[in-house]
């Protein structure tokens, strides 16, 4: 049922925030089309009356009491940052220049 084109892969890669290079796109497009075609066999079996199962355990929300506890120090929290300044994460611009 699939027909994942090179353009589709480029679009999905953009959604996933991965800037693929041309040679990567060429290779991935063929492989992904084959994989998508193969995983599509899940459509052969699951009837409408089968409930989906997202998790092997019945999950319940786990909360803790609302009290102040020790946390990472600012130094520890920033220790792995690619860029930091004045005790904050250094990030590129988020808004357009306009």
């Amino acid at each position, binding site marked *: 049922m699939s027909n994942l084109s090179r353009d*589709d892969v480029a679009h999905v890669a953009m959604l996933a925030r991965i800037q693929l290079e041309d040679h990567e796109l060429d290779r991935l497009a063929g*492989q992904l089309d084959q*994989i*998508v075609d193969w*995983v599509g066999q*899940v459509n052969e079996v699951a009837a409408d009356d089968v409930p989906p199962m997202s998790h092997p355990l019945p999950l319940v929300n786990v909360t803790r009491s609302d009290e102040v506890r020790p946390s*990472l120090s600012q130094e*520890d929290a920033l220790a792995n940052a690619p860029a930091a300044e004045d005790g904050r994460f250094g990030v590129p611009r988020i808004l357009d220049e306009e």
Partner: protein
Amino acid sequence: MESTGMTTAGNTTGDLTRLTALQMADALAAGEVTSVELTQAHLDRIEAVNPSLNAFLLVDADGALATAREVDEARARGEELPRLAGVPVAVKDIACTRGLTTTAGSRMLADFVPPYDATIVARLRDARMPILGKTNMDEFAMGSSTEHSAFGPTRNPWDLDRIPGGSGGGSAAAVAGFLAPLAIGSDTGGSIRQPGAVTGTVGVKPTYGGVSRYGVIALASSLDQIGPCARTVADAALLHEVLGGHDPLDSTSIDAPVPPVVAAATGTRDLTGLRVGVVREIGDTGEGSAFQPGVIQRFEEALDQLRELGATVVEVSCPHFVYAMAAYYLILPSEASSNLARYDAMRYGARTTPEGSPSAEQVMAASRDDAFGDEVKRRIILGTYALSSGYYDAYYGQAQKVRTLIARDFQAAFEQADVLVSPTAPTTAFRIGDKMQDPMAMYLNDIATIPANLAGVPGMSIPSGLAEEDGLPVGVQILAPAMEDQRLYAVGAALEEALRQAQGGYVFEKAPEIEVRS
């Protein structure tokens, strides 16, 4: 295996690295050896053969020896110590270790030094076990061969030109090659059991939720499970009890006592009355069986041994298992694409800044292209596609329904059998490079192990001998219902002992000496 003028390392009689973890614990308790001696013996072995294997990415000699000294001193003072105190252990590089680089096999985290310990690491520290270092793995645990590590492949101690399985190939190779008596692995689709099979070691995936995942770098959260790698079933049980149990920091952690796995692994060897189910469909690719003849042959012999131990072997049918792989390769990439979204190059991880004055979005996209390997990109994109508008129902939604059908298959099978058995991996270890260009061929390695992850049931692989055609290790897989992990250990230990007697020794004892390559 003849060595052609090459030097070999270790393997002197009385070599401490050849002891089982249980023997080490007993020798420590009896004062016959110190933890410093044991730890140093493993560090020496690592130094000698790790250049050949690339099993360890990081060795923490100072940290391990410091723990060992503390244990020795505590013992000398007469302090009561945990059973495995002083026995060294290796940790897959997927678990966060405070102050020790944790990479998950990725360039993305090449310089990441966690400010905290994963719960399982904290439990190793509480158990006073010296942590030798961090073991190699497929990037973010995606792969079946450890060739997808950004830091080079790990080699199989049985044949350095072959893969040690994946994604926990580093842990399995460390245990099989006597670099560590015990190691931790993580199993999302078979990453503890399949490496166990192809390296001749024991690998266990506990019941989903039985071991905390807090501080373990997430791949697919509804499938991931931490578990032990060891050379014997009893050793695996000892580590399982250290790792297992409720953790308030993990909301999927089961709030129940750890199943009595050590008692099961060291108890009776009689399996009278046990019903062993062989699933007709395990290993079925839709176009025939995926299993190599030598793998089938060893499996049949394991069944004979189980019968001799008093078990009844019955055939059961799990008709939806043939769809397990397809469902898995939708669910895993979907969850992975979400989990790996956190690697955005903003707060931690590698950052690539394109020229000019790029936006945050452009920096993210460039960083993720640079720092993720091919397999990771392939799966993130597949997952993003499967979750995208218009395709969600056809792919992810349908895969979740298949998951229900597989869980129901297990339920029905466990009404007819107490445990299910199959070969663990379809083939013995293949050659490095053989499947790298063919993702579909690589994915087939997990065909027998994946159903257990989808349903959350526990599974174990134990060595069942060597394949006739290539002399390489083969594994047999045992599966039990959720929360019944002790059944795996009881059956595994009985079968292990029967095979040891029939084959004149443990499989791991037959491993060839490792050529020293640099």
